[in-house]
């Protein structure tokens, strides 16, 4: 055992002991050479029985996966056989502690989220040139870090899989989570880890019970039938009946997650199918079909693909990844369509100016911002394409179609907006829909388009909401078309916003004080994280899940709305 203050390898000062077990103790240490950074150090005593671990230690040091703590250093054994693995210190709790602190109840959706991450890390370990079987998957060995991500810790009994080796060394895994073959000292393989994953999930979904190889208890779990089926497939006694690969299980969980989120999809030429295809090539042609609660063989050219990916109605493709992370570049620019209400009420005062002048100013500021973000050296490398439509009783296309930001800057564009009479928002949305229909087929590599609508009151003419909803269902691989609304009104919220920078944004549950605002909320997209990050970097504290809806109570909020519309990630 090491003492506090002891120095390892002339570099790491022992701060405290974190844990100890059969395979050695783990200490928190401070790095004298790297700004006193904290690390975790695993102390292993190498004796004749464990020298075979040395090769594996060097192999473990090469692992690199976001759900495995990075191993940064390895100090070879001294004369007494003391050697050390220096690794990333994970701040958090073990899954067991986390679970117990919540009275052994965590939502099934959370269990699925953790399961997906565990599948990811097992997929990584199992697909290495020399596959690694973890062999000790259990809640004690899974950390939940500060970002609510899992980290698989303690590779104490992990080993590489050698096919010829017919019996395993020692059944070290904890009984409740160990596979039957492990307990019977038979050969373990990657499927043994899948059993342990099933036992861990059973433990979490059952309120802390151990599985114990009793098949009938799975039906008593408090979760969906689909989730029970996945757990059941993992807990099959015979390895050949069990789910075969972490990849296949991950896909089953992904499918389950999509079904639970109510997402409909019909296309199969997408990343998911790509993954399925890869899985079928690389692994054992087996995929668990969560919807139909059975394991299916993929063998022949995916003839069952429509069964795996259910068709529901004729909804447009809405499959992941929809992360709004595609960067706008000169060859893949972002498309933004502005719909600006120029009805009579826009002549009302807002501070010392008319509403319409505030909007005009905010629009020009946003355009300059786009030029700013597109300028490299002395040239504009257009990251944006715009259409600017004003509407009253008619729609006016100020640019005469979609124009690049370079064309707009060169043209000296400087519109003078004047209030007119009506507010036919439906016609404006319809015009935007037609523009999008013409553009979107050429935008497969571009960021998702955005429609930014500004109004100051109830619409005249038809209801724009169904059209806005249709627009929000249009998509490119980066994500569905985003719709943002800026609503100029003094009566939208029941309280003032004293500091716009500190404002968290409008969410689904915020109380809005008029029906127009409620309608616009239904027509607003959730702000993508990539946009929110850019707004946060600009000093605005919009919270995760806020809607792309701005209460235009003053010029600063109107300006914020236009800035948000241009917050596309750019190269």
């Amino acid at each position, binding site marked *: 055992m090491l003492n506090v203050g002891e120095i390892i390898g002339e570099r790491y000062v022992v701060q405290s002991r974190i844990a100890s077990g059969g395979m050695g103790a783990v200490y928190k240490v401070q790095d004298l*050479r*790297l*700004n006193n*950074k904290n690390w975790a150090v695993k102390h292993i005593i190498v004796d004749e029985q464990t020298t075979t671990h040395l090769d594996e230690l*060097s192999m473990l*040091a*090469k692992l*690199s996966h976001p759900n495995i703590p*990075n*191993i*940064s*250093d*390895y100090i070879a054994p001294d004369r007494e056989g003391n050697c050390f693995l220096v690794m*990333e210190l994970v701040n958090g709790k073990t899954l067991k502690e986390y679970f117990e602190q919540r009275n052994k109840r965590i939502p099934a959706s959370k269990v699925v989220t953790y399961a997906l991450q565990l599948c990811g890390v097992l997929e990584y370990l199992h697909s290495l040139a020399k596959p690694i079987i973890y062999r000790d998957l259990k809640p004690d060995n899974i950390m939940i870090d500060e970002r609510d991500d899992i980290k698989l810790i303690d590779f104490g009994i992990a080993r590489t899989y050698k096919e010829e080796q017919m019996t395993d060394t020692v059944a070290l895994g904890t009984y409740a989570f160990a596979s039957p073959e492990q307990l019977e000292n038979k050969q373990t393989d990657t499927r043994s880890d899948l059993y342990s994953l099933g036992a861990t999930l059973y433990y979490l979904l059952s309120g802390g019970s151990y599985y114990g190889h009793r098949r009938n208890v799975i039906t008593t779990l408090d979760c969906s039938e689909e989730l029970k089926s996945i757990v059941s497939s993992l807990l099959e006694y015979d390895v050949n009946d069990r789910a075969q690969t972490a990849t296949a299980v991950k896909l089953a969980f992904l499918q389950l997650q999509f079904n639970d989120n109510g997402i409909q999809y019909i296309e199969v030429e997408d990343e998911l199918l790509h993954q399925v295809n890869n899985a079928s090539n690389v692994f054992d042609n087996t995929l668990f079909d969560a919807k139909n609660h059975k394991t299916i063989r993929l063998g022949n050219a995916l003839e069952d693909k429509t069964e795996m990916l259910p068709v529901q109605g004729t909804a447009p493709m809405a499959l992941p990844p929809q992360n709004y992370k595609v*960067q706008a*570049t*000169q*060859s*893949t620019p972002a498309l933004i369509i502005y719909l600006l209400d120029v009805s009579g009420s826009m002549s009302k005062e807002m501070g010392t100016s008319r509403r319409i002048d505030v909007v005009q100013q905010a629009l020009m500021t946003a*355009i*300059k911002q786009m*030029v*700013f*973000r597109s*300028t*490299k*050296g*002395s*040239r*504009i*490398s257009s990251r944006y394409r715009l259409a600017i439509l004003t509407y009253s009783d008619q729609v006016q296309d100020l640019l005469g179609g979609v124009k690049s930001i370079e064309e707009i*800057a*060169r043209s*000296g564009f400087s519109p003078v907006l004047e209030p007119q009479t009506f507010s036919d928002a439906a016609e404006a949305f319809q015009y935007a829909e037609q523009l999008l229909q013409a553009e979107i087929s050429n935008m497969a*590599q571009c960021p998702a388009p955005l429609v930014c609508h500004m109004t100051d009151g109830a619409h005249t003419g038809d209801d724009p909401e169904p059209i806005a909803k249709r627009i929000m269902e249009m998509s490119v691989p980066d994500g569905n078309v985003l719709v943002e609304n800026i609503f100029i009104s003094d009566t939208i919220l029941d309280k003032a916003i004293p500091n716009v920078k500190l404002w968290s944004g409008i969410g689904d549950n915020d109380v809005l004080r008029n029906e127009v605002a409620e309608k616009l909320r239904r027509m607003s997209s959730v702000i993508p994280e990539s946009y929110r990050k850019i707004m946060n*970097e600009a000093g605005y504290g919009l919270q995760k899940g806020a809607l792309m809806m701005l209460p235009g109570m003053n010029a600063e909020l109107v300006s914020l709305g236009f800035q948000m519309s241009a917050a596309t990630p750019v*190269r």
Partner: protein
Amino acid sequence: MGTIYIDQSKETGLISQQIASLHMRYAYQRALETQQVDDIGQDYLACRYSEDELAFCICDGVSLSYFGNLASKLLGDALTNFLWELGEQAYDEAKALQEQLKQYLQQLTDSATAQLRNHVVPQHISGMLREVLEAKKAHGSESTFVCGKVQFSDSGMTKLALAWAGDTRVRMWSNELEKTSRLGGQFLTQERWSTVHGVIGEGPHVYTSTAHGAINKLHIYTDGLIALDDWTTAPTDGELTAMLEHSLTKPTSDDITFLELEVR
């Protein structure tokens, strides 16, 4: 004694060079759209070396700033010379080197600001673009950087000092075992050096090592070569050249600077 100062206005295909026991490979490639209009790249690489020591700096000019190529060249030359002339002090404790660099990078803003003042927005540019460029000029030119100095002998890198601000990649190996995590992971996109403000963010981050032979290979490359992140071993010349060419097929093609230092 020798020097390398990359020409930002053209490509430098992969070059291999042996300096005593140190093997060096480097390459420079502008983004596709920059090549298409024959503009100046915003990355930069500078090196100074002798038979047993080498100082270098790789910079990635910030395109959202005013002519990022100005800051990258100015900073790259300055830091390479600074480390070179620092002698043995470069390998002092990390804290000491960090302090010296902080002071130097702040001092450098005076001459940089003066140089920028003399830089004129081309007369033919007018309207909104001129307005934007004038606004950018007031905020200065910015660049990320990784600079370093290494002493080497037949047995390996005997001393090493690295400093950085920004997300340019630095990776290091000891006998094929990657040791990059020793650097601590603070490679943040928002950190950089500005001709007006000096260092923006918590940098420069510094790593020094006098552990004889502990590290024998370094890779430093800008984010245009992000594809190399997935590689756990060094690519061959052919693979690297193919990666450089392949990067030009992507819409996100960016300037690329690559430097490898290895004691074999």
